[in-house]
């Protein structure tokens, strides 16, 4: 196993983690600020991807497609918050899970009705396609590098928003004591709609960015949603920093586990069995990581101590 291969896999893990972060950031904000379990977050990811594919198909511009993805998902998020989610804040988590699960079905069937069951075409723009050679002779796709950079920029932007702006102060205050900030004259329902739209927009952006290298299809959000939940549990619910570190940890564990576990098993089993059992263990790796973190820190790495 050459160092170049390992370096490339670390980049892959980082890229995967950064995309997971875009999903998990919204999820953790919504959970932290509003105390809401939003299973439909994966549907907003799908909405973003479909909006991007539709706009890219119509205009040919990838940047416009990204803007459309962000806008469509944020709009869908705001709408969902106003129409459905608003009624759920005072209910228990089971009701929230049921209602947001219903939203998944509605979004999936609605998208199928609008766009059909066949995957849509969304391609990487010419100016981001192809590989670049990094120092050390590593060939790596430019688009994936761009994803890493963009994801980290979003992380910095979110951190500035939360720690340096008035809205950020309100969000943090809302996390701690929602009655108190309402009493101080902050329009809490407007704040909730805003946070929900922000989270939805980030999910939509992730959907569009990932859709360009994967396939844009109905149901694409659900597998990512599960991983995003793992990320926020590892990182600590409500913590953006936790979401970033959790996402990178999950991304690296998943990618590197998939490579090294089969190699490890080859030391004491024949190649075919090693590949099969190695890949089986690799798919468990992130859940083992989650369990280990929870044993060590029951509220996650950066969760509020109770």
């Amino acid at each position, binding site marked *: *196993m*050459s160092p*170049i*291969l390992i370096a*490339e*896999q670390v980049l*892959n893990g980082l*890229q*995967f983690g950064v995309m997971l972060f875009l999903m998990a950031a919204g999820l953790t904000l919504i959970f932290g600020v509003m105390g809401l379990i939003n299973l439909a977050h994966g549907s907003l990811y799908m909405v973003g991807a479909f909006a991007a594919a539709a706009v890219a198909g119509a205009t040919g511009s990838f940047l416009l497609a990204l803007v459309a993805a962000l806008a469509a998902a944020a709009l869908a998020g705001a709408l969902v918050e106003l129409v459905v989610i608003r009624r759920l804040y005072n209910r228990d988590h089971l009701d929230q899970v049921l209602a947001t699960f219903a939203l998944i079905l509605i979004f*999936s069937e609605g998208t*199928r009705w609008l766009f059909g*069951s*066949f*995957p*849509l*075409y969304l*391609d*990487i723009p010419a100016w981001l*396609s*192809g*590989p670049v050679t990094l120092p050390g002779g590593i*060939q790596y*796709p430019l*688009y*994936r590098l761009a994803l890493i950079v963009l994801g980290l920029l979003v992380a910095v932007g979110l951190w500035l928003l939360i720690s340096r702006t008035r809205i950020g102060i309100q969000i943090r205050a809302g996390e701690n004591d929602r009655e108190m900030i309402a009493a101080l004259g902050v329009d809490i329902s407007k704040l909730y709609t805003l946070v929900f739209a922000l989270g939805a927009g980030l999910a939509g952006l992730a959907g569009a960015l*990932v859709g*360009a*290298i*994967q*396939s*844009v*299809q*109905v*149901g*694409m959000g659900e*597998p990512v949603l599960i991983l995003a939940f793992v990320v926020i549990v590892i990182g600590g619910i409500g913590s953006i920093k936790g979401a970033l570190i959790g996402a990178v940890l999950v991304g690296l564990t998943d*990618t590197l586990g*998939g*490579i090294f576990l*089969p190699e490890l098993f080859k030391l004491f089993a024949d*190649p*075919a069995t090693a*590949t*099969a059992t190695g*890949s*089986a263990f690799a*798919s468990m790796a992130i859940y083992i990581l989650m369990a280990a973190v929870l044993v060590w820190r029951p509220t996650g790495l950066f969760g509020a101590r109770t």
Partner: protein
Amino acid sequence: MSMKTLLAAAALAALATGAQAQVKVGMITTLSGGGASLGIDIRDGFMLAIEEDGRDGLEIIVADDQRKPDVAVQIADEMIQSDKVDILTGIVWSNLAMAVVPSATAQGKFYLSTNAAPAQLAGKGCHPLYFSVSYQNDNLHEAAGAYAKSEGYSNPFIMAPNYPAGHDSLNGFKRFYEGELAGEIYTELGQTDYAAEIAQIRASGADSVFFFLPGGMGISFLKQYADSGVDLPVMGPAFSFDQAILQAVGDAALGVKNGSNWSKDLDNEANAAFVAGFQEKYDRLPSLYAAYGYDTANLMLSALDTADVTDQEAFRAALAAADFDSVRGKFSFDTNQHPIQDIFIREVIKEGDIYTNMIVGTAIEDRSSAYVDECSM
């Protein structure tokens, strides 16, 4: 309305439907999620043949298995116990077929496979009531293996999802390729990111890549592969280059060779009529899955013409005779009730704005399956 009249009405209604539908067919297939395009093509191909035939007394019940084995088992139980179907069909994925088929045939139901045909059911697990109309899983991969050998590739990297058909795939490829491999990996079923695998391919020193990734998996892999800068020739079974995948992948797939038992340019009357009819009705080109669905329905109809489905011996003999015009031209059943057919090599081409396949040669003539001797029927 009194309770009595209500009951009488219900009884009458039951009688009426009972008299109308003499034969019930249950179709379990994947209509949602990443594998939906496969199931939809199977259903549409099947229903096209049923509509062209237009006979009365046939009821088709279609249900979505969501590519989940537990859902498929639940639907099958419901179809067998409350709908009382005579024939089951439609399953796309081999892990679902393994969960449903043995128990369905054990309960005395015919199962006609429109796609999945795992090794287990072709060999020791063969059953008089189980027919595969599509192929045996290994077949199309065997063709790709034969192609790799004839092209003189000496160090291919091979890859398939970790489920029964994935194992059959790599076994099939190796059976006809017979040489050294640069690497062999199993990916997760439904995986969407192949960056790690592509890095392994790059580092392996392979001279070519064989992959079996149907549906959305194939789209993701091909797009990422094209963007990775690895430019080794790729090949695979037709599943990795079906009609839906090609439209989503675009130019990246042009020129790729793949093994198939069907292609839209196969020169026979039944196929020409099928391709034209499918395009007219659904406004898109059929895939090989649609062709299997269409053939399965026509085989079933041909058997219903000569035998009653309740007389299992007679109906089985009528199916085994394969007295229908297959869109694949030559078609007959071997003793394990899997097809004997030609397997071709196709090349991905562009016709106008549409990406599709064209036949460039025959890889294996009159191919049956590797497991036929293990079947004791």
